[in-house]
């Protein structure tokens, strides 16, 4: 008969409470919790279909070790021995700084904490980071700077419904994150003013009162020059009681977020406190992984720097992430291919796993115990609803075994023991040692930070669009849903998020003017380069704007040339460009 396990969804950063229904062998359904403060009986279509991807036959079943151009199935002792030999070889030949370690927002807080300790104490390297370096780190780094450290909770999702003014940056914050969207609708029905800022929107939904055609990068400038805003918008925005909803994955430089917050709160924070903020992410544990220390240590390299051509990193140890899916430039892929050793511990046979020297199967989040931190700063328990797969080993076991084989002593911590250590070492997480609080529906909401500090970060310049030229926007799509392995594994969800092809998206009227039909190729030229790409006509794209998803790395690079470096997060991004379009 059916067993109902209360747990949390692990698709995105909202951390909705759900029951997963299983028949003892496999998951057969999901139901949102009505008593959970985030979900309140609601889920998005990913959540409702979460059980489906667990049927996948594409799970890694046995460890793999590279033999020439092939990966061969081996036993665990063989795989661990091979890994140990490789790590020892790199350590003795080049020293600990030749190794990089990658944690993951698709792992629990406890596993990320263990990985950080393993990296620091066992391998002795400070080169520790996550793939979110390219999708999310900029937002978290900006908030860290403002609050001089880890910032706990900046507001709760249910509180959005009571906020008089809500600024939503990017339509997908509402559409793709239904607990947030649901509160926006509630607020709208109660008379709140909901403002949308989105440069890729031609028709706003009726519950948005105003549409500002700006990306997050240029919102601060628009807010400072208040004359460019409709006066009613200014009247709403610069009052206390504002909620700011944005997708952390889309923030490409820390300075853009800091400038935005400062433009919204020009007076001392005590007079006009910072808005309630929900930094959303398409990964489930972005904030948790970041807070657990999956960041470069003192003198350590970011993932960007580890994969720089000049970098002295020779080996990478990757946990729970399909890294190649999230790389923003092709030179990084080249560097990755040339690494002497890559260990991948993951659930599926991903593109990254295919290129590894050693692959270790780990459990799904559905089979794992531990906690995750959602975008509100809510720490909640995952409860496994599937038994462990025969040949999978938890990350903790792998780390323990590797340490022992490397002649070091890595403690065998249970989950509660790790949480006790986290509560001592990571300041906003003091309460996570309380198992009874964690057992409650909704878990523990981290404390709100103290007042923000003044903070100035160097800004990236925005280019003006000239007459007869198009503005090319390159939104960060490295974590796009149609690139998520768990979406691919679900028959319903892969139909909802069909894969896209490398193309520039253009407004239908612009296409008509240039006599371009769907699929026809155009030459797009910027000051930095040019490319040829097919056109996809999209009525959501405003006139004189082109959109190119950033995950089409080669097309983006040939057009945008070298990416811009964000000094704060030490990573690259592609700012919007002024381009010309020519029919071929």
């Amino acid at each position, binding site marked *: 008969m059916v067993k109902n396990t209360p747990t949390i969804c692990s698709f995105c950063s909202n951390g909705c409470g759900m*029951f997963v229904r299983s028949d003892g062998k496999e998951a057969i359904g999901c139901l949102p919790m*009505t008593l959970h403060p985030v979900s309140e009986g609601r889920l998005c*279509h990913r959540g409702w279909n979460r059980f489906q991807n667990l049927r996948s036959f594409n799970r890694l079943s046995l460890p793999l070790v590279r033999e020439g151009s092939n990966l061969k199935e081996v036993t665990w002792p063989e795989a661990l021995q091979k890994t140990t030999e490789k790590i020892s070889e790199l350590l003795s030949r080049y020293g600990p700084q030749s190794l990089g370690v990658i944690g993951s927002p698709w792992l629990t807080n406890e596993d990320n904490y263990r990985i950080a300790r393993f990296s620091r104490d066992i391998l002795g390297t400070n080169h520790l980071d996550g793939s979110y370096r390219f999708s999310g780190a900029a937002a978290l780094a900006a908030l860290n700077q403002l609050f001089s450290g880890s910032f706990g909770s900046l507001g709760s999702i249910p509180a959005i419904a009571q906020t008089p003014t809500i600024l939503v940056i990017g339509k997908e914050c509402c559409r793709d994150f239904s607990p947030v969207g*649901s509160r926006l609708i509630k607020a709208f029905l109660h008379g709140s003013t909901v403002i949308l800022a989105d440069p890729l929107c031609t028709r706003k939904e*009726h519950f948005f009162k105003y549409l500002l055609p700006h990306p997050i990068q240029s919102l601060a400038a628009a807010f400072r020059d208040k004359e460019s805003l409709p006066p009613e918008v200014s009247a709403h925005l610069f009052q206390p009681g504002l909620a700011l909803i944005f997708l952390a994955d889309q923030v490409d430089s820390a300075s853009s977020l800091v400038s935005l917050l400062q433009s919204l709160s020009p007076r001392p924070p005590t007079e006009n406190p910072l808005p309630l903020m929900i930094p959303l992410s398409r990964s489930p544990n972005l904030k948790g992984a970041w807070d657990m220390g999956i960041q470069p240590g003192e003198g350590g390299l970011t993932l960007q720097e580890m994969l720089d051509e000049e970098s002295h990193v020779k080996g990478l140890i990757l946990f729970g992430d399909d890294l190649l899916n999230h790389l923003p430039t092709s030179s990084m892929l080249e560097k990755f291919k040339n690494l002497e050793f890559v260990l991948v511990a993951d659930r599926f046979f991903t593109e990254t796993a295919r290129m590894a020297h050693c692959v270790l199967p780990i459990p799904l989040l559905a089979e794992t115990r531990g906690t995750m931190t959602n975008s509100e700063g809510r720490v909640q328990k995952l409860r496994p609803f599937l038994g462990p797969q025969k040949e999978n080993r938890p990350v903790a076991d792998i780390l323990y075994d590797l340490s022992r084989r490397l002649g070091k002593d890595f403690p065998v911590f249970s989950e509660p023991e790790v949480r006790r250590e986290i509560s001592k070492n990571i300041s906003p997480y003091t309460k996570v040692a309380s198992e009874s609080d964690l057992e409650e*529906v909704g878990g523990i909401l981290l404390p709100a930070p103290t007042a923000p500090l003044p903070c100035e970060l160097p800004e990236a310049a925005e280019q003006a669009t000239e007459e007869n030229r198009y503005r090319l926007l390159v939104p960060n799509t490295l974590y796009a849903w149609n690139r998520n392995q768990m979406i691919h594994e679900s028959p319903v969800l892969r139909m909802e998020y069909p894969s896209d092809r490398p193309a520039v998206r253009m407004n239908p009227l612009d296409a008509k003017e240039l006599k371009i039909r769907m699929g026809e190729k155009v030459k797009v030229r910027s000051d930095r380069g040019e490319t040829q790409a097919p056109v996809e006509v999209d009525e959501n794209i405003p006139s004189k704007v082109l959109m190119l998803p950033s995950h089409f790395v080669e097309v983006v690079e040939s057009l945008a040339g070298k990416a811009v470096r964000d000094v704060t997060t030490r990573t690259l991004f592609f700012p919007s460009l002024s381009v010309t379009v020519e029919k071929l």
Partner: protein
Amino acid sequence: MEQVVLQKSNLNHWVELMHGGFQVVAPSRVHGEIFFLPHAGQLESDLLCGNATLPYLPPKDIVFPQSETLFSFTRDAGDIAFSIPEKAFERLVILGIRSCDTAGIHWLDNFYLNNFRDFYYHDRRDNLTLISIACNQPMNNCFCICCEGGPFLNPEKAAFDIQLVDLDEHYLVECNSEKGKELVNLNRSLFSPPDPAMVEARDQLEKKSHTLFLHEPTSYMSTAIRRITSNSVPPEVWTELGERCFDDGGCTFVCPCCSCFGVGYSSKGETGCHYRFWDSCDYSGFTREVSGHNPRAEKGERFKRRFFHKLSYQYVKRDGRIGCVGCGRCITACPGEVGMPAVVERLRRG
């Protein structure tokens, strides 16, 4: 229809007797939320009374699971062997199903048994006995009164085997089928004939319960049906309603009447399976064709289609009733606050 009386204190004993030939599921709490679960130990009596809370997941998943394997296959030395899963149950009693959910199963019977005989559904449904409980008191979101989904079931129109009416210390037990009688006959001495005062009390409860429902959908439903049937809802209304739809599918999953499913395949090496799962007309992939063309690409169009199927008279004529039993779960499930009553109210305004 035979009416007998059962003292509430004898309910547990009656259920114990059922275990001789049936599995029994009854509403139970898991972390504060209510599910239909196999009965073990004491029944949660507050979930079996006339004003009990409606479980969020209707027991439709017992006859039509959220996902199920249809068949598996393996190839061994050139021969392909097929197998279908073992039966979920031999004989099952659902105790405490609410009127709206019973009406929902009746609707599913029409879809899965009358148009064509679905092997998997039929196998479960044939071995199922429904002990429904009439509702003396609606919950906040209930509007079954205007959808013929309750609060009391009409024996001629519903598929219940037994309807229990909560009369404080007693249940009035109304047997509506041979399956129902079989359960009463497990031990006739537990039951007594009702005195006329009890029958009168039952009728008074039914009358009183009718006055306790939401007013708006009750009075607007017929207008909505008329407007949808005559295609007189302006397209911009559907666009506006569609903008509030999050394509989440929650309303269809918790709807006791929604019957759509998709089919998936999974295989590795020499083994694999073919399975089906709840699908939703909210989803853009539901109607997208292989070419990529989607006849209902806009959310407003999908929204219109959903409510057309639920409320249009052409389906009422074919299926005998509207595709809504008024349980109100879509109100809880909808992030956009466009559950059935909100839509009906919006359609009335035109």
